[in-house]
């Protein structure tokens, strides 16, 4: 552990679970400077993560040695590309404790959620009776929470508009947690699906999934868990989770953009009609109509994002070599330190849980008298990249009565020095705008 990555202070230094300096050396982009020679302090992993060389190398390896369309053609490259693609599926499945056949590749979390939402409305008019199993229609209800990212809210609003179903939601408590007091009434015998985020992208809250799954399954509803902010940051096992769907994005977990994952319990996936249709998802095609492959192929129309899938498998290997328990512990230590440092600054208010209990490394805050855009601009001038705005969770900022927030998010390369830079930057903003 080097001095810069260790925790400063008067007491004993708490060593971080991960070797930050060694990890930073794996990320070429962290070696660049921004805004006239400043070290890049990247605190925006929650929007998209940076990529280690191992991931970049895996994509390059594929294009330089194997590139071909998988599941088509009989030449050697096609065979090898298919092998590499399916091997990657197995690696990514094992990462969340799922068999290969339950892993569907999508463009990102957003597309994975839309896939399920469209499958549920397509089900109503499917000609195959078994595809109508989970059809959503008039009188049915879909349940979300007030904490969802727009990607786990708007597709369900749209599903309800297409089908005549009703959208209901679980609210939030003042301290940034899900309010489950009315779970038993909001989730009822009319509920067809409950969609909930495992970790809020704006509040950092880690939600209790078990009671929601228990109630939903009691009334025969499906559960979709948005893992975009949890799968990259904590161990997630689909058997323990107990849900029916888990969705996440590759680009937020050190992987490439353009690949996301839909995990679904096989018996559920098997009864869903397709969303996108076309090549490679079909069984037999005649002019009069077509039949479809079983999952996961049924949901992977067209030539897939092969290189990205292979890059994502490399990201999974990278995270597993670090150990997801350690990744989580590391971020918890950083988050605790950040909450402490922010609490020391007058005028700074954290929006979300005030301590590290059931909380991940997304810290949103406001600075009295300075709009988040202006806070972000001063931080940017110092080389610190944060997110500002409503973070694609507009109802959340509205719920807490602020127009927007500044958000810092942490990952495996985040050290105490990054948090110190953030705290100094906030003070610089206060000085610049004359609020202190």
């Amino acid at each position, binding site marked *: 552990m080097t001095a810069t990555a260790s925790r400063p202070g008067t007491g004993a230094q708490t060593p971080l679970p991960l070797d930050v300096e060694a990890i930073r050396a794996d990320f070429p982009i962290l070696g660049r400077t921004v805004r006239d020679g400043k070290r890049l302090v990247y605190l925006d992993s929650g929007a998209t993560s940076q990529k280690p060389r191992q991931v970049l190398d895996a994509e390059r390896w594929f294009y330089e040695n194997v590139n071909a369309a998988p599941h088509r053609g009989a030449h050697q490259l096609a065979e090898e590309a298919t092998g590499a693609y399916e091997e990657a599926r197995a690696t990514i499945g094992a990462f969340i404790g799922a068999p290969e056949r339950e892993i569907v590749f999508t463009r990102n979390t957003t597309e994975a959620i839309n896939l399920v939402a469209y499958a549920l409305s397509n089900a109503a008019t499917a000609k195959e009776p078994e595809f109508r199993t989970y059809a959503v229609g008039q009188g049915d209800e879909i349940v979300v929470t007030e904490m969802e990212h727009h990607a786990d809210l708007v597709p369900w609003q749209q599903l309800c508009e297409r089908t005549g179903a009703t959208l209901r939601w679980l609210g939030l408590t003042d301290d940034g947690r899900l309010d489950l007091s009315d779970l038993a009434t909001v989730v009822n015998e009319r509920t067809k699906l409950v969609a909930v985020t495992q970790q809020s992208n704006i509040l950092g809250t880690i939600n209790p999934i078990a009671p929601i799954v228990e109630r939903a399954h009691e009334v025969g509803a499906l559960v979709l868990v948005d893992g975009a902010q949890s799968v990259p940051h904590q161990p997630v096992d689909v058997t323990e989770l107990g849900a029916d769907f888990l969705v996440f994005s590759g680009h937020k977990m050190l992987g490439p953009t353009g690949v996301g994952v839909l995990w679904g319990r096989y018996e559920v996936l098997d009864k869903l009609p397709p969303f996108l249709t076309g090549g490679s998802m079909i069984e037999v095609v005649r002019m009069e109509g077509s039949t479809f492959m079983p999952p996961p192929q049924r949901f992977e129309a067209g030539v897939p994002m092969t290189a990205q899938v292979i890059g994502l498998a490399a990201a999974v290997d990278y995270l597993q070599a670090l150990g997801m328990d350690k990744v989580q512990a590391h971020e918890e230590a950083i988050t605790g330190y950040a909450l402490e440092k922010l609490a020391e600054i007058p005028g700074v208010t954290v929006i979300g849980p005030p301590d590290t209990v059931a909380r991940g490394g997304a810290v949103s805050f406001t600075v009295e008298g300075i709009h988040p855009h*202006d806070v972000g601009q001063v931080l940017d001038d110092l080389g610190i990249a944060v997110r*500002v705005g*409503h973070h694609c969770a507009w109802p959340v900022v509205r719920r807490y009565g602020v*127009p927007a927030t500044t958000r810092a998010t942490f990952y495996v390369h985040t050290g105490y020095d990054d948090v110190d830079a953030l705290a100094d930057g906030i003070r610089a903003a206060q000085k*610049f705008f004359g609020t202190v």
Partner: protein
Amino acid sequence: MQLESMYQEIILDHYKNPHGRGLRDPFDAEVHHVNPTCGDEVTLRVKLDGDTVADVSYEGMGCSISQASVSAMYDLVVGKPVTEALETGEHFMTLMQAKGDPAVAEKLEDELEDAVAFAGVSKYPARIKCALMSWMALKDASARALSATGGNA
């Protein structure tokens, strides 16, 4: 620090002491504009007197750039013919597309007065929308006001 190039003293003055702020009656048109990337919003009213902008009143929440921009705009357009006000808006748009080119700012100094201070903003693509929001609202509200009052620009 590069910050001073964006946050000119004039901008910070408008931000801290906005001109013409508050919604006033009477008005011929009211519009509500938002910046969907950050959630900033402005409600803006236009009152015409014939073809002249008699008053622009507004309320909004947003960053220093968006709030200062609407204040500087108020100074520039009230009392001008609508056509001239909208032309000034076009000049401001040109300034925002200048990528910080000082020659463009110099050329527009007479037309834009205080608002020429926003030249530094044009170097930051993410902030251009903040500066433009109120001008877009003005354009929209003026068109509605003209059609409501039967005038034409």
